[in-house]
């Protein structure tokens, strides 16, 4: 597994964790708010663990690159303001991530550790998927996000994703370019950090 692949994994987890943490305090149900926030924290924790494999300074890797240098998929950058989309992404992400992690477990001990925590994320996502499967809002959100979800995985893994989600493989929004959302996200994410000289303590 090369550094670019690890960075893709870590950046995906960082950015989706960052996006999911936007719902802390405003999720549709209080009980879900608490649970969803734990998932967001876990994702960021996973990102940190992978960054630590790549660098002594995980924060520098997480925050101090310029937006173009991030390897995250467009899928996780999307700013989703409605729960239907957010939970649809959560579900699609977990299904895709399970495929990705299964492929990594052999070469990366950390992947097995991440996978054990992700088991609860998958339970949570599946629970919501079952509950909302009949809702037009959820179905529409899944359809809209589908090309992005496909783009999270390399082409060789997309048939597996298609089989699990029940949608045909289509043209994906590929990893390698970024959406318009990334720069504003990065600016907000780094605004406090950039307000002090590099190496300042927080």
């Amino acid at each position, binding site marked *: 597994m090369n550094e670019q692949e690890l960075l893709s994994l870590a950046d995906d987890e960082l950015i989706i964790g960052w996006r999911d943490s936007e719902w802390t305090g405003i999720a549709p*149900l209080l*009980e879900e708010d608490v*649970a969803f926030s734990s998932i967001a924290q876990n994702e960021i924790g996973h990102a940190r663990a992978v960054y630590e494999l790549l660098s002594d300074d995980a924060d520098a890797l997480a925050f101090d690159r310029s937006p173009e240098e991030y390897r995250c998929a467009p899928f996780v950058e999307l700013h989703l303001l409605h729960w239907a989309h957010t939970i649809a992404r959560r579900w699609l992400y977990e299904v895709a991530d399970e495929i990705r992690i299964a492929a990594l477990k052999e070469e990366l001990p950390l992947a097995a550790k991440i996978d054990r925590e992700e088991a*609860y994320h998958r339970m949570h996502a599946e629970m919501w998927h079952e*509950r909302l499967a009949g809702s037009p809002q959820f179905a529409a959100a899944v359809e809209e996000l589908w090309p992005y979800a496909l783009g999270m995985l390399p082409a060789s893994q997309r048939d597996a994703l298609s089989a699990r989600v029940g949608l045909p493989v289509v043209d994906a929004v590929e990893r390698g370019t970024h959406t318009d959302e990334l720069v504003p996200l990065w600016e907000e994410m780094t605004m406090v950090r950039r307000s002090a000289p590099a190496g300042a303590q927080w």
Partner: protein
Amino acid sequence: MNDVWEVFRQDRRGTPFEHAGSVVAPDAEFAEAWAREQYGRRGESVALWLVPRDAVHVVDEWADEFDLKYRRVDGYSIKARLKEARERAGTAEPR
């Protein structure tokens, strides 16, 4: 409310399950997902029992019309007699 789930949690293996609160959830799956986080995200619980509130049969009234203290510890006051017995036997402790 017909969707309240009572949460009982266990601190450590071997300790009693104690009532910790409740979550509002449509079924056991949601109740579990939510109670896991509300009552266990800090590793503060090793186990949970989730019980629909309707399944809890509440008992909170008792009749205690006749003095049945004989079968409880607080029904016995042995201090005075014990003192007398010790004095008789000469084993009373010096003051």
